[in-house]
């Protein structure tokens, strides 16, 4: 895995401790393109969703402006997610270790991490979130075109108009569910996770605790390279 390697950065050496590159710069940039465009689509989308949330339009320049940009930001988000698919597809494949981890997931929820089997670069939950987002994005893209160009759908195929509305709403709600958990875990719950997607690095202890197989893999690669 050439995207991940052990490095010794200056601020890590202050703590006298080796730090590991978990996300490359391009992975981080792409994550934040996806994150920010998703938040834009979330804010504007919620404003279209319910009159009680229409005030959100004030944050994005008013209803017509929000309506104009929503699909374009959606396209950028889609491109970003497809790029994630391209680079992370291999890492996101479910493994036997993930199935063992899935069985032990109640321990993870209760923060009893010592009872969890070792796993690779991403855990079962992260993979679930990735595939939810990936397929959700495909559905949002297709149904979004149906809403964007609703008049281009002929009257005789109007069931497609209704399908677009349904699928867009359902897919959006599903991704929002994932998004809430993702943001919670990435910021509040799993300490070190947020730093890793900003600066790219995690401590060896973090890597060993949460992704031991991945840690062993990248440290082996690194020593082989030396």
């Amino acid at each position: 895995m050439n995207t991940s390697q052990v490095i010794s950065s200056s601020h890590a050496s202050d703590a006298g401790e080796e730090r590991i590159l978990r996300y490359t710069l391009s992975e981080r940039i792409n994550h934040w393109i996806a994150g920010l465009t998703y938040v834009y689509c979330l804010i504007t989308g919620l404003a279209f969703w319910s009159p009680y949330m229409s005030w959100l339009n004030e944050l994005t320049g008013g209803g017509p402006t929000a309506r104009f940009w929503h699909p374009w930001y959606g396209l950028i988000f889609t491109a970003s997610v497809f790029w994630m698919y391209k680079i992370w597809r291999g890492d996101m494949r479910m493994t036997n270790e993930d199935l063992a981890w899935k069985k032990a997931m109640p321990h993870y929820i209760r923060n009893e991490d010592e009872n969890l089997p070792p796993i690779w670069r991403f855990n079962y939950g992260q993979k679930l979130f990735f595939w939810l987002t990936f397929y959700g994005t495909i559905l949002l893209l297709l149904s979004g075109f149906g809403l964007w160009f609703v008049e281009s759908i002929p009257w005789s195929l109007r069931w497609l108009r209704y399908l677009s509305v349904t699928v867009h709403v359902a897919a959006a709600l599903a991704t929002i569910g994932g998004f809430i958990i993702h943001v919670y875990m990435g910021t509040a719950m799993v300490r070190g996770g947020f730093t890793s997607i900003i600066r790219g690095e995690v401590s060896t202890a973090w890597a060993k605790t949460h992704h031991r197989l991945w840690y062993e893999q990248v440290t082996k690669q690194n020593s082989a390279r030396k």
Partner: protein
Amino acid sequence: MSQASLQIVKISGHAGPAPGAGVERAEQVCKLVDTTTCIGCKACEVACLEWNGYTFSETVFDNSYQTMPETTWNYWNLIKFNEHEREDGSVTLLMRKDQCMHCAEPGCLAACPADGAIVQYANGIVDFQQEHCIGCGYCVSGCPFNIPKFNSTTKKMFKCTLCSDRVGEGLEPACIKSCPTGCLHFGTKDDMKDLAEARARQLRENYGLEKAGVYDPAGVGGTGVIYVLHDVSNPEAYGGLPKDPQIPWVVRFWKGPAKWIGNFAMLFGVIGVTLHYLRYGPKQVHERKNGRGGQP
């Protein structure tokens, strides 16, 4: 204060009920289109353009007398021409003036997410307020008659206003004014229904059109535009007039239960992760090897 609110409903020292009590003053306006006397002259199409200030634009010839396939954002009134084969094999041309039906239960209004972009007046007219329209096109999905149309330059939706500006001044809509055969009528909903029923009865009894009837679909609570049809059992023959128009159930679900299910699901998601944090707190990494970790 309008005069209607000063109507006397109780009266002292009076033998019998108060004179005039129970009189209905709220008037629903209605347009009656008698397709059996329409000659397809399109005067109403021109009058609509004239009054609303639109110019005629290029059209596509489609082997039909019809001006264009569908109404557009700046062409709200369109006579639909349909060749129809009678049971005896002879062919007739069915002509129907197509425009917004001004439903009592408007699907466009139900679907619209923009505050005040679609309104329904007390007289029944359903009107778009373009200054509040965000151009999302949800009304297109809500309408069972395929009427709202998008102006891609201004990003606003448009449709027939039933000449609300004229009606508000006590005038009849422009299309009604222009009709040379008198197949278009305008008045209160009750009057127009009486007139339409009388005409349908005449067609059944004197013209041998046993299936003649009035099109005032109940599925959308009745409409502010009603038709007299030669054959009310087959409205589809008149350029796709739906037999039983309804607000699509998807739109009803989307704007009804789905809203609450979705909102509660999102709320429970946020509450759920908050409770998790309060109960279990953050995941700390145990710095096993070197003792210099930040573990308290």
